[in-house]
C-alpha cells in the first residue's frame, strides 16, 4: 500500500492568528481517513492547503508523491473536493453545474453521474439558489464524486444532509474504499467517522493531538468506573491507585465514580476489600475520546467522559 497523502511539519498562520502548527500525518492509499476537531481547530486550513488554495508557511504536503502547491494541476486531475462552505453560481441549474465542472475536468461518465443523482435524489433542473442547504450539499457531493477520483477530500460532507442521505453517503464512501480509492474527510459526526473511517486524526488548536486507527483509539484504556458499596468508602482508597485519574463521591457516600486510564486490575482488587453492591465500567466510545482530547485541560470534570455504553456490570 502506497502513501496517498503525506504531511510533514505543516505550519500555517494568518498574520498573528494561528492556523495549524507543525502538523504531521500520512494517509495510505485505499483508506478512509477521518479528520476530527472542534470549530477553528485547523481542519479546513489543512484541507485547503492540500487543495493548494492556501500556501503553507513551512513544512511539506504531498499527494501521491507530488507537492500539493507545485503540482496542484496534476493533483487536481485525480482529486474530488467538497469545500466546507460550498459556493456555486446561484443562477446555474444543478445540471449546468455538473456540465461545467465535467467540461473543466473531462472524462465524466454520464451514466455514473445519473446514478449519483438518482442515489441522492437530486432534481438537477433547479437553479442552485433554489436548492435547500441539504440539496446544495448534494450538488457538492455529486460534483466531487462524479469523475471517480482516486482521492476524495471532503470537508464536513454530510453537514445538512438528512439521515437517509447520510446513510447513502456512507455507502458511497464504502464503495470508494472497496475500489481501493482514498478518502480524507473531516466531520463533526463522530458516529459517522466511527462507521466510515479506518483511521482518525484528532486536531485541536492547530496541533495534531492523536492519530490512529478507529479501533486503536477506542482501545485507549480510558474507563469510567462507578461502584456502589454497602458501606461508606473514602475516595482516598482509590485515588492513588495506578491509572486512576479522577475520583468522585456520589450521593450518600456509598457510590464512587472513578476515571481510569489503563487496566482496571488495581481498582478491582481495591474494591474487593469492601462490600460491593454494584460495579460498572463504561467503555469509551469514539465520542468520549474525542471529547477528552477537546476538553480544556484545566478542569477535571471536563476530562470526565460521559457514560455511553455499559460494557461490564457486576
Amino acid at each position, binding site marked *: 500500500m502506497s502513501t496517498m497523502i503525506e504531511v510533514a511539519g505543516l505550519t500555517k498562520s494568518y498574520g498573528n492568528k494561528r492556523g495549524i502548527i507543525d502538523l504531521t500525518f500520512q494517509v495510505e492509499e485505499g483508506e478512509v481517513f477521518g479528520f476530527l476537531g472542534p470549530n477553528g481547530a485547523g481542519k479546513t486550513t489543512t484541507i485547503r492547503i492540500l487543495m493548494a488554495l492556501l500556501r503553507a508557511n513551512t513544512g511539506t504536503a504531498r499527494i501521491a508523491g507530488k507537492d500539493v502547491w507545485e503540482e496542484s494541476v496534476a493533483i*487536481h486531475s485525480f482529486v474530488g473536493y467538497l469545500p466546507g462552505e460550498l459556493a456555486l453560481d446561484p443562477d446555474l441549474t444543478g*445540471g449546468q453545474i455538473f*456540465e461545467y465542472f465535467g467540461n473543466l475536468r473531462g472524462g465524466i461518465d454520464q451514466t455514473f453521474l445519473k446514478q449519483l443523482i438518482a442515489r441522492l435524489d437530486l432534481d438537477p433542473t433547479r437553479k442552485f439558489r433554489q436548492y435547500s442547504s441539504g440539496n446544495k450539499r448534494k450538488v457538492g457531493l455529486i460534483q466531487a464524486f462524479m469523475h471517480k477520483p482516486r482521492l476524495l477530500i471532503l470537508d464536513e460532507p454530510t453537514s445538512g444532509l438528512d439521515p437517509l442521505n447520510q446513510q447513502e453517503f456512507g455507502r458511497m464512501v464504502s464503495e470508494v474504499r472497496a475500489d481501493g480509492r482514498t478518502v480524507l474527510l473531516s466531520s463533526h459526526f463522530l458516529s459517522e467517522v466511527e462507521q466510515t473511517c479506518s483511521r482518525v486524526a484528532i486536531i485541536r488548536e492547530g496541533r495534531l493531538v492523536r492519530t490512529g486507527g478507529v479501533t486503536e483509539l477506542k482501545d485507549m484504556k480510558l474507563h469510567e468506573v462507578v461502584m456502589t458499596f454497602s458501606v461508606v468508602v473514602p475516595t482516598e482508597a482509590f485515588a492513588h491507585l495506578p491509572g486512576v485519574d479522577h475520583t468522585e463521591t456520589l450521593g450518600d457516600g456509598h457510590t464512587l465514580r472513578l476515571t481510569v486510564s489503563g487496566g482496571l486490575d488495581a481498582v478491582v482488587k481495591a474494591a474487593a476489600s469492601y462490600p460491593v453492591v454494584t460495579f460498572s465500567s463504561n467503555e469509551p466510545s469514539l465520542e468520549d475520546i474525542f471529547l477528552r482530547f477537546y476538553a480544556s485541560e484545566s478542569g477535571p470534570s471536563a476530562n470526565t467522559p460521559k457514560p455511553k455504553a455499559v460494557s461490564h456490570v457486576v
Partner: protein
Amino acid sequence: MWFKNIFVKTLRDSRIAIFGWGGGLGLMMYAVLVAVASLTSTPEARQTLISLAQSYAFLAEPVRVDTPGGYATWKYGFTILIMAIWPLLVGSRMLRGEEDRGSLDVLLSLPRGRTQVALQKLAAMWTALLAMGALIGLFTYAGGIKAQANYGLVGAMLFSLNLVLFCGIFGGIALLISQFTQRAGTAAGATGGLLFFFIMLDMLHRVISGTEWISRLSPVYYYNLSKPLIPSYGANPGALFVLFALATIISGIAIWLFDHRDVGDAIMLPRWLRLPERQMTPDQALAPHSWSMRSIYLRGLAKVIAPTVWWTIGIAGFAGWMIIIVKQTESKLAELLQSTPTLANLIGNVGGGNAETNATMLSFFFIILPLLLMAFAIAQASRWGADEENGLQELLLATPQPRWIVLLARYGALATATVFIGVLTLVATALAASSSGIALNGGNLVAATLSMIPLGALVASLGYLLSGWLRTAIDTGILSFLLVAWFFITFVGPELSFPTLALRLSALYYYGTPLLNGLPLVNTLGILVVAIVALVLATVRFAQRDIGR
C-alpha cells in the same frame, strides 16, 4: 451607539454614501453656479445662452437660464436625478438583499414585527436621503452666495427637498419590485430601467405637443414643477405633495406585501405577466450542452453579456446622440463659443483644436467615451474579486485548471466585452455621422472609438492587480477615485494651467484627441504595455497567493 437598533445600524451602513453622494452632487451644484458668471458676462453671451437652452429644451425646461438658479436648474434638470441610483440600490437590497444572504431570517427571529423591521430600514434610507439633501442644499446655498444668486437658504433647501422626495420614490419602487423578484440585482435593474423610462416620458411633452397628459404619469414631471432656485417660479406645494404621497404609498404597499409573503420567496405575478418558464426533464437538465459551460472563458463571457449589452447601448447611444446633437446645434453653439471665451478655451483644450469646428466639439464630448468604458471595466473587474470573496473560486481552482488560465480566461471575457463595446460604438457613430450629414474623418473615427479599448483594458488590469491584495470594496473604491481624478485632471487641468507632468498622470491624457488628430500610436501602445504589465503582475500574484473568502 451604532448598534442600538435596526434604524441606526442601517443608517451607519449609509454613512459613506451620505458624504459621497451629498458632497459630490453638492460640489457639482456649487461648481455650476460659480461658472454662470462667465457664461453671462456680456448681453450677447446671455442671449446666446438663452437661445442655446431653448435648443435643448427637450432635456429640461429652460426658465431664467441667465440667472444662476435658473441655469443650474436647467443644466442639471435631469442629470442630478442620478442621485436616485443610490436609493434604488438601497431599496432593492433593503429586504431582498438580506434575504439573499440569509441574514433576514436571524433579524426576523428577534422580538420585532416584520413591519417594524422594514419601517426602521426604510426610515434609515429616508434619513440618509435627507442628510444628502441637506449637504446638497448647503452647497447650493454657498454657490448661490458666490454667484450672487437671488435665492436664499430656504430656496436651496427646497431644491434639495424636491430631489430627496423624488429619490425616495425610486427607493420605494425598488423596494416594491424586490417583493416580486428573487434577486436584489433584478429589482435594481428594473428600477433603473423605470428611472430612465420616466425621464424619457417626462421629456415627451417638451418634444411633442399635446402629450402632457402622458408626461403626468412620470414622477419626473412633478419634480420639474418645482424650481425653488428661481424665486419667480418657486416650489409647487402640490407637486411636492404628489411626490411625497407617491413615495409613501409605494413604500407602504411594498411593506404590506413583505408582511404577507414568505421570507425568501417572491410574490407570484399573474400568469400573463410571467416570463415563460422552460420546462426541463432531469435528462434534459443533465445534457444542456450550453455553449457557456464549455470553458472558463465562455462562462465568463456569459456572465458579462447582460451588462455589456446595457453599457453598449449607453456608450454607443451616447456617442451617436452627441453626433446628432452637435450637428443640430452647430450654429447656436458657434455663437455661444464666440461670446464665451472661457467655454471656447475649455472645449479647445480638451477637444484639441478650434472650438468652432464640429470635430472639436465632438472631440470634447468623445473624451467621455473612454471614461464610460473604464467605468464599465471597473464594475466588471470588481466581480472578479467579489467572486473570490463569495467563495466561487474555491471549486473552480479544485479542477485541473492552472490558476493563470482561470484569471486570463476571465480577463479575456472582459477584454472581449470592451472590444465589443468599442466596435459597436464605431458602428453607431459612423451611422449617426452618415445619417446626420456630418463630415468626419473615417480613420480618426475608428481611432477615437477603438483606442478607448486599451484604456478599458488598463483599468481592468489594475482592478485584477489590486484584487490580489485588497478587498473588492476597497479595490473598486480606489479605481473609482482614480477615474474621477483622471476626469478632473483632463477637464480642469488645462484651464488651471497644470504642468504637463500633472496632465500625464491622467490615463485620459494618452487617449488624446483622436477624432481630430488621429491615433496617438505611441501613447496607445504605452497604455497597452502598462495594461499588459499590470495583467502579468496580477496573474503572478494570483498564482502565488492564498485564496480567501
